[in-house]
């Protein structure tokens, strides 16, 4: 077997492990609330998460993949194509090892941050500080802080609005019925916008930005109306008696939305380096513009889905049934804040952490007095994980790279 084929297979396995890990651990942060609040069953959560992360990964994931793969360092100056292959393989392996340790120890680290740190580590050791695009790195680091913050502000605002216009009104159920179609419409507006703008779907249909807004608005109005009709039918069937039940319907929607956003954002962590290695292995050189094949994104999507099916469901179950605080209204706000901030970041090509955005949203709803007790200690631990993940993932990857280069 040729060495490049061997590396390719080995990297695919490690990339698959990363994807599996995302499915096994990170999906729970977004799906557990819906299961805990009994909006969906565990089985439904697993199926929804599996299908939608796959769809999100395959059809929306390309832009983030691009940033992680090429944006943060200049592969031309790393050395020969073989050195680049070894560097990217080491980065993927290094990030995986760190993720494995963090998962074992229960540390709130991000797979996204680990892979970025790992790439920087191998970049530094192979080509020195000059090949790293530090401007981009600082931008990415800023986005790590901004995305949970944005997610928190969004969740805070949405919950405050729900509280003022629904929960604190005397006829709160009636108010919930009146306003929920708007929430459905807004949610779908953002989903459609994400689909149309800069995704393979939007490009294929050749829709301009202004048309995207128009079509998204039409789509939002339609889905809002459908939502309105569904809620009316459910009310007539006597299935809706209180506010939480109405939001249960909305939460199913936002859970799908989170799963979709999750796949689109996080697939890059697993297949970013793999895509680069594959193109170098095939062409034998570091190309100027590398096409990211759909089947590779699909591989990442399948990896995440298998992660959910094999282990993720247990984590969703454990977390979901122990978080009793996340009722449907709160869960909706958390999901909405998380998914919107992740999708926007994903569209801007910024690799942010879905997990940290979810924690940001929980804190946001907490500050809006939506939760009885929010532990800010976790926020501190996340900040610590921000500080340690980069150097540790970078260090592990750099060591692996050195060992592989000596071996080679």
């Amino acid at each position, binding site marked *: 077997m040729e060495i490049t084929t061997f590396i390719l297979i080995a990297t695919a396995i490690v990339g698959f492990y990363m994807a599996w890990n995302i499915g096994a*651990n*990170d999906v*729970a*942060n977004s799906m*557990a*609330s819906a299961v805990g609040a009994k909006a969906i069953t565990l089985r439904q959560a697993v199926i929804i998460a599996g299908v939608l992360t796959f769809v999100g990964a395959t059809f929306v994931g390309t832009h983030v993949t691009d940033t992680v793969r090429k944006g943060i360092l200049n592969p031309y100056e790393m050395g020969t194509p073989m050195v680049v292959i070894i560097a990217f393989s080491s980065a993927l392996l290094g990030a995986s090892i760190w993720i494995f340790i*963090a*998962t074992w120890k*229960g*540390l*709130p*680290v991000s797979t996204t941050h680990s892979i970025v740190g790992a790439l920087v580590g191998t970049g530094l050791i192979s080509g020195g500080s000059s090949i790293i695009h530090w401007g981009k790195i600082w931008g990415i680091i800023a986005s790590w802080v901004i995305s949970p913050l944005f997610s928190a502000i969004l969740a805070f605002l949405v919950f405050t609005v729900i*509280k003022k216009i629904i*929960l*604190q*009104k*005397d006829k*709160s159920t009636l108010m919930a019925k009146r306003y929920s179609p708007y929430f459905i419409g807004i949610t779908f507006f953002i989903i459609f916008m994400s689909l149309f703008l800069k995704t393979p779907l939007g490009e294929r249909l050749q829709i301009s930005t202004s048309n995207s807004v128009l079509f998204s608005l039409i789509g939002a109005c339609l889905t809002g109306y459908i939502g309105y009709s569904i809620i009316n039918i459910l009310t007539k069937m006597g299935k809706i008696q209180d506010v939480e039940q109405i939001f249960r319907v909305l939460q199913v929607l936002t859970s799908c939305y989170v799963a979709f956003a999750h796949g689109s954002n996080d697939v890059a962590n697993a297949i970013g380096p793999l895509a680069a290695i594959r193109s170098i292995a095939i062409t034998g050189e570091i190309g100027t513009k590398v096409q990211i094949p759909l089947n590779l994104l699909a591989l990442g999507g399948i990896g995440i889905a298998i992660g959910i099916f094999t282990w993720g469901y247990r*984590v969703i179950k*454990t*977390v979901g049934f*122990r*978080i*009793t*605080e*996340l009722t449907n209204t709160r869960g909706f706000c958390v999901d909405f804040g998380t998914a919107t901030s992740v999708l926007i970041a994903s569209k801007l090509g910024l690799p942010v952490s879905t*997990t*940290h955005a*979810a*924690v940001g949203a*929980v*804190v946001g709803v*907490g*500050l809006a*007095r*939506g*939760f*009885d*007790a*929010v*532990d*800010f*200690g*976790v*926020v*501190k*631990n*996340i900040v610590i994980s921000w500080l340690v993940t980069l150097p540790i993932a970078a260090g592990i990857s750099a060591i692996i790279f050195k060992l592989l280069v000596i071996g080679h």
Partner: protein
Amino acid sequence: MRAPIFKTLRRSPFEGLLEHAKKVKECVHKFKEAVECYCDGEYDEFERLRKDVMKLENDADWIKGNITAHLPRRIFMPVDKGDFLTCLHEHDDILDFAEDAVIWLGFRKTEMHQEIKDLFLKHLYKVIETVETLESVVDNVKHLVVSVTMEERAKAKESLKSIHYKEWEADQIEHELGRKIFELGGDMFSVYHLLQAVFVIAHIADHAENAGDKIRAMMAR
């Protein structure tokens, strides 16, 4: 497992407060029965109920300790944590005084004149009424601080206001009872024993009133 969202949301301290309130209700009920038995001279039954009150007070203390232990500085609550903890302590004081009252009564078998007995029980029932009104609001406290509607808010405020009135009524009965105990006289030990018991029981209503004020403060935030 790596799920930080799970660690971000802690168990609701309000649930702890409700658990504590359940013990308060149980304990106050036993306390009422105990004092009734004492007034009727059923000292054996009183002794049994006194032990029940002490056990329930002890259980509630344990719950209180557990709530406080799980509320470090980094935990953020929708209400002022100081108000919440003071409310909990005031709640706990209700039980402390109920326990003190049965212990004090148990020191001596003092027989009561019918007139004193009637007033003594009247005072007791009024005090118990303040606690029951408080508990009716506490049952809904979690809802009251977040998603309360104007109507529910007005209702809760009305109940809390009525605690003040009931406490005032209890005070009036207490004064009347004090006067009556001196008026009817008797041996010095009996007078002192009964007077002190009345004072201790009166504290229960005072603390129910204080706990109500703290709930009002939590609602106002």
